[in-house]
């Protein structure tokens, strides 16, 4: 069920990118797209009834059924990359605002 929500989130992010003309809204849609993608990546590795892939004093042996740890490691990287691009996008948005005085792309007018 979460996997379907992740795909719909991905598509809503794409929808936001296609329709919104506001710089901040575009960055928000980009974030929604990335959250959806991260949820989908982790959902690919989910095993029903599996345990979190950490050895603790409770689930302490390697014979237990664990969830797939590799997609979680990939998502750690994807989240940090998403933050990197969002920080850059917002810095660009501030520059654009200083130059054009607005966030709406249509009001900027391509000079």
């Amino acid at each position, binding site marked *: 069920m979460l996997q379907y929500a992740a795909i719909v989130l991905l598509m809503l992010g794409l929808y936001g990118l296609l329709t919104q003309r506001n710089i901040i809204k575009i960055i928000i849609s980009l974030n929604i797209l990335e959250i959806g993608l991260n949820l989908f990546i982790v959902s690919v590795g989910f095993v029903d009834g599996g345990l979190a892939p950490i050895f603790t004093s409770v689930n302490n042996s390697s014979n237990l059924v664990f969830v797939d740890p590799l997609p979680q490691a990939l998502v750690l990287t994807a989240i940090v990359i998403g933050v990197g691009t969002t920080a850059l996008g917002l810095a660009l948005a501030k520059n*654009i605002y200083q130059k054009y005085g607005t966030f709406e792309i249509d009001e900027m007018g391509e000079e």
Partner: protein
Amino acid sequence: MSAILLIAIPLLAAFISILFKKASPYILLFVSFGSVIILGYLPLETITIGGFSAPYGINLVLDQYSLIALYVVDTLFFLIVAIACVKYKKISTVLLVALAGLNGILLTGDLFNLFVFIEVSGIAAYLITTTNKKPLATFNYLVAGTVGSSLYLLGLIILYAMFGTLNMADMSANIASSGLTTAVAFPFLLMFIGLGVEAKLLPFNSWAKGILAHSNKLTGPMIASVYAAAIGFVFGRLLTSVFVFSDKLGLILTIIVIATIVAGEAMAFASGKVREILLFSSIAQSGLVVLIFLQGFVGWGVFLIVANAAGKLILFMIANHASDELGTDEVKAFKGLFVNNKVIGLAFTVASLSAIGLPMFLGFVVKMNILGDLFATGDYLIPAVILITSIVEGIYFVRLLMKLWYKEDNLPVVQYEFVLKYVVVVLAVLIMLFGVYSAPVETTANDIDANTIVEGGNL
């Protein structure tokens, strides 16, 4: 002395150079020159990282294909940096990280690692294009690049869920043994679109117009020749040695790519600005590169990238320098530019004639061999497309050249500094040398064809 130094040393230099602001341009020059020199001493081998063997750990693949790719990308990177680093001192650390990212893209043998390095060099590219002083164009490039790499990651994760591995060699073995070519079509299409955004293929290259039409001496050559070459090599590696795709999918992709070529040529023909002509012809050429790899010709695809990258560097460097000085890039303002700087004019002419594919130049050798191989496989549609586009290219390049050489009364006064002249002339001489004496080119191309296991091609 292992290939990992090509990535570790630029990263170490980047981390250190944020402390020594004044010395960072010289660190950049030294490291990029060093990375070209190191290439001579690297044995061709697969390097595992962290001590865990291939499908479980990450490995770097240094075979003949990636050695040539590294030579091309690193040399052109050093030439651009040598010219532009004095003016753009502020972003030398960014250029160091871009060098590490590009070397990573060409070396890595792991699909997720390729995604990370595409992001590293992509973010470095966004920062390089901020020197264009066009924040909206950089913002469009950032959004397009991020969406592209997100789609690439989506396709990669679906493939991981199906085959359980992230390593390229392991993945291609699983795909070939499983024989699910129809099921692989969808994730492969996502990855193709993801990379297509970066390679300026047709439906997703709107960002390229904003970036390259207002480019300067650094962004123009960097994005149009170095980054385009790196992405071309990635396409080569993925299309030929990883993916096996069915007839139907091969046809769809060929149609997308041919549309890119035709549209690129048409827009270049119709455009009035020098940089726009070069921009659209570089879009068409990147489409041609992908087309050649789709047909499975690895060797000649590599040399098509080499010819394009060298030619594009000369064209964009000269055009951008002139438009920086004159302020506008209308063809009318450039009239008679080469009359009083003959050397630059000669180099520009050599580069554009090689792009068209006229005899005596590297472009001709590559195009003739590709057409020969295509005819051998009994395929007539694609050679026809290549010939028509070469003719269209010929028309608008010659028209441009005539204007630039035409003797005018008020000649635009543009001063080219010595380093730029020297670099451009050396490249032009190389293009002519390999055009005339093309034996080594043919042998290496057949070598690459021989020892790259061509998994791709229509099943």
